[in-house]
């Protein structure tokens, strides 16, 4: 009896398909294949964008589990609307638009429910916006990695306090590195508005991150 050393030796069609779909295949081609019923093509799209979309929604909502759920919902919506997709823009613009809409909807739901974290009860001195509890720790820091981690947490907290209309363009620009043109397409607004909102968001952040600048 012959023993197989790998499952690939079985020669399943799935294995053949995986050879066909490579990293060089464009998103539009994968979407076309998905439209014809090729689930592996869609799986490739998911694997390409899952981390980006999850990370983007996490930066928007500051909630990892919720971000994962919304990222999955993003892909479900892409799949559901694959027949209506128009390839006039990049697929990344399309999927980021869906993710942005979902994230903003989630933020508005939270605002309606008035879900406030336990640490969010502490406010600024002027009482304008919530600020997270960040008790001063005067002990010497252990190493530079710890400093970097603390700084990243502070940045994330500061971003999460931004109004949603400033938060999305700032993340898309300064975290995701998208161009102004792409951001304007994702947010469906003009480039001038995008630039203005990003500048305003940086002003907000500068006030909150003054200790780190």
């Amino acid at each position: 009896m012959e023993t197989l050393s790998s499952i690939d030796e079985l020669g399943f069609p799935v294995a053949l398909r995986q050879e066909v779909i490579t990293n060089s295949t464009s998103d539009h081609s994968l979407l076309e294949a998905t439209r014809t019923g090729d689930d592996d093509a869609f799986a490739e799209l998911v694997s390409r964008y899952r981390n980006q979309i999850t990370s983007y929604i996490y930066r928007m909502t500051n909630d990892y589990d919720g971000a994962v759920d919304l990222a999955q919902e993003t892909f479900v919506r892409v799949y559901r609307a694959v027949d209506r997709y128009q390839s006039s823009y990049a697929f990344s613009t399309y999927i980021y638009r869906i993710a942005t809409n979902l994230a903003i909807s989630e933020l508005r739901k939270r605002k309606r429910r008035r879900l406030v974290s336990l640490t969010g009860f502490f406010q600024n001195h002027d009482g304008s916006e919530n600020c997270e509890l960040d008790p001063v720790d005067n002990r010497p820091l252990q190493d530079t990695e710890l400093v970097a981690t603390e700084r990243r947490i502070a940045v994330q907290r500061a971003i999460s306090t931004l109004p949603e209309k400033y938060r999305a363009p700032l993340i898309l620009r300064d975290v995701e590195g998208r161009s102004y043109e792409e951001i304007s397409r994702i947010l469906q607004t003009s480039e001038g508005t995008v630039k203005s909102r990003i500048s305003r968001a940086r002003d907000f952040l500068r006030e909150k991150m003054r200790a780190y600048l």
Partner: protein
Amino acid sequence: MRVVNCKTVGREIEEADHEKNLTALAMGHLGGCEQCQRFYDERRKLRQLVASLETVAAPPDFDLRVRSRLANERVGARAGLFTNFTFGFPPLGLATLVLVIGGVFTLRAWNASTTNSIATLTETPQATGPSTQREQPLTEPEVRANAENRPLPIAKDGTVEATRPARQPKKRGPLRSGVALLRNGRRLATREFSSTPAPVVKQEEAVASLESSPIFSIEASSQPLRLSLDYSGGVSRTISVPALSFGSERVLAGDGLSLVKNSPKGAW
């Protein structure tokens, strides 16, 4: 010639991808403007801070969960497809409509048969006699017959006649009236006399069995009642009995005898 000032340099700093993308003119302005230089340093550090946020990885089972949700979507889509097909396909939709209408008619017929059996159950001798028959409006002979069944004390040569015009009774569903009859488990029948002609009772008919002091009694006195007495001399008198509501009756009497006498509860 392009004018370089703090405003244009500030806009250029905001929109630049990297510090290297600043033009030579802007860089030259930064060298001589402390305010713009400070703004440039703040923005550069701020963008470095924000850019230091690393990409958060999706969980390992992300693909599996997406596939699972898509599978659920497909199951739901199949159910929706069946629903749309059923109501979008004319013959099936029509057949469904016919079934629904047929079901409604069958239910109504069943209700009617159930009500008839209920009415049969409620027609007992103790249940105020003829008042249980409320399906059809009473005709004049029936009203007279009802009145004759009750011993009414009236004056000599007097009659009792209806003072309220006959109206068509309000049509009620048979099931509803039957259920009302059996409400609280009591075999209680009600009758609305305002919807039927009031009975006319003549004295000689009502007092035939009485020797003197003519007395007539009316059952079910818990309802409001108005008695109209018409004496033979053209004098009339109306008595309102608030506890009775089944209409008004007109008593025609000739000799002006007292109509109410020995009236225990439930009898006038």
